[in-house]
């Protein structure tokens, strides 16, 4: 479900801006570090973790807005290769800035109250926090659908995704929509990072592991498709679980094999729409 949160941000950005944001993993890492940092400075306040989870991604989104307006906006019309290089440059800058600000050590956070227990469901024992994450993932999924289908902003986003010239001609401020979507995508990435802190070791390089998984998820589901990202995350999760049971040696490879097969057979993904490449 965490991967879903991060991947859906990537997919949202690609769907609307047509930019494959390599730095999305770095955004996730930024979210995680900010959350750890905010938790440590908010120590005296009860429930500091939850404040950090709210505040951290918000800061990440602001950062995303800055990046979009200052840098990305200049390059939409250029060949997508330059987008790769630009977002790759962002990875370098973000990860070194994180090192500069917070050092290269490993950090972790304990499960926050009141989700630090476990619960017995159907004979198995699960940490409460993991169930909470599933709930968050599902609510984000429905929340995004509702946002895109029932609000005015959602209508505009879908319109811009479909045809930016026409929306522009209709008097919509397309660049502003792009900024909003990019900020939303970054917020999702940062939110995923913040919520990941009790589960993973927060360290430099955590972005690399995640961005590749996100690519697999997004490609399987279909680039730009939000439902696809949800489906893709579930498929990759199941594949990982079964892969480790059946052939632990090659568990990692299954994801890439599936990605390659999807790209060869159905490049627009399981839920994506056919389009001109």
């Amino acid at each position, binding site marked *: 479900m965490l991967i879903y949160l991060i991947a859906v941000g990537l997919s949202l950005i690609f769907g609307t801006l047509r930019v*494959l944001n390599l730095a999305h993993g770095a955004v996730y890492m930024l979210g995680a570090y900010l959350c750890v940092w905010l938790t440590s400075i908010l120590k005296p306040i009860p429930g500091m973790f939850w404040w950090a989870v709210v505040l951290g991604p918000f800061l990440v989104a602001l950062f995303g807005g800055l990046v979009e307006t200052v*840098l990305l906006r*200049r*390059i939409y019309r*250029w060949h*997508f*290769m*330059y987008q*790769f*290089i*630009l977002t*790759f*440059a*962002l*990875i*370098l*800058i973000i*990860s*070194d*800035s994180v*090192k*500069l600000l917070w050092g290269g050590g490993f950090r972790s956070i304990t499960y926050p109250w009141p989700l630090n227990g476990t619960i017995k469901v159907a004979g198995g024992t699960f940490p409460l926090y993991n169930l909470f994450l599933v709930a968050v993932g599902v609510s984000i999924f429905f929340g995004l659908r509702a946002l895109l289908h029932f609000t005015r902003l959602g209508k505009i986003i879908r319109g811009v995704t479909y045809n930016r010239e026409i929306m522009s001609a209709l008097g919509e401020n397309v660049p502003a929509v792009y900024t909003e979507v990019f900020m939303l995508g970054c917020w999702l990435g940062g939110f995923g990072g913040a919520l990941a802190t009790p589960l993973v070791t927060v360290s430099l390089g955590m972005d*690399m592991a995640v961005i*590749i998984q996100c*690519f697999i998820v997004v*490609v399987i589901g279909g*680039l730009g498709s939000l439902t696809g990202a949800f489906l893709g995350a579930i498929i990759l999760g199941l594949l990982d679980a079964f892969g480790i049971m059946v052939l632990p*040696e*090659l568990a*990692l*490879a299954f994801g*890439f*094999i599936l*990605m*390659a097969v999807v*790209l*060869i057979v159905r*490049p627009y993904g399981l839920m994506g729409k056919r389009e001109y*490449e």
Partner: protein
Amino acid sequence: MVVAVGLFAAMPTFVGISWVSVLCEILILTVAASGLNLVMGYTGMISFGPAGLYAVGAYTTAILIVRANAPFGLAMIAGPIVATVVSLIVGWFCVRRTAVYFALLTLAFSELIHIVIFKWYGLTKGDDGIVGIPLPGFLSSIESYYYFTLACTIVCLLAMWVIVNSAFGKALQVIRENPNRAEFIGINVRRYQLLAFVIQGFFLGAAGSLLCGFSHSVFPTNAHWPKSIDMIIACLLGGIYHFYGPFVGSAVYILLDKVITSFTEYWSLVFGVVLLILVLFFRGGIVGFVSERLSAARREGS
């Protein structure tokens, strides 16, 4: 061109051992980047997975020497050949897709190669890498290996020069500019793209084999995607629409790396900023920028 070769040949007499190995790295990256550039700059397909093929070359040579006691020359030739065969298989699938999808597919295959190398402990020693690869006596010093690399690089670049200036090379550029029109004038676009991809595989494999002899060791990271990014950046830095672009880019990239790391540990921060400036203001790369200036100056002069 001749001046550059002469300069490189004379270098070891002026600089220390450590710089000779830097020069060696530059030459190896040049071979890889100019191979990649045939696909990226000349044919206009952005490949995200050159590192996979590069590692195939490196591992073939390493395994042949260490496991099969193959003679050095044979192992060096086998590297590029095996990489060519692998690129034929990978390329056959990849050229069916364009733009982002092509890039992602090459990435997927490259990462698959990485995982195979990483996990197939029996053959590749996985994470430990293959170390202590013996070289024949006459190449054992760093200077002699440098001259060997230089010779190979010159041969590769000459071959590349012939390729890009042949009718085939021109056809690739037509495909880059407009695949539909290329199809109309009777170019079999996919076959040409595949051929470019396979030639690229040969060059990447050759670079991998050279690396294997140079560092006496190979590791799975050689197949991982940051390695691909190195090559892509080397091309872009130099300028992908120019023959000398990859060479200039490789040299600048590796020298920048050495210079920046010598005075700060935050080299990727500095390099990230350099890349941003490059992308925003010098999209033609260094060679592109210089040749633009030169032609502008010439126009003013005449």
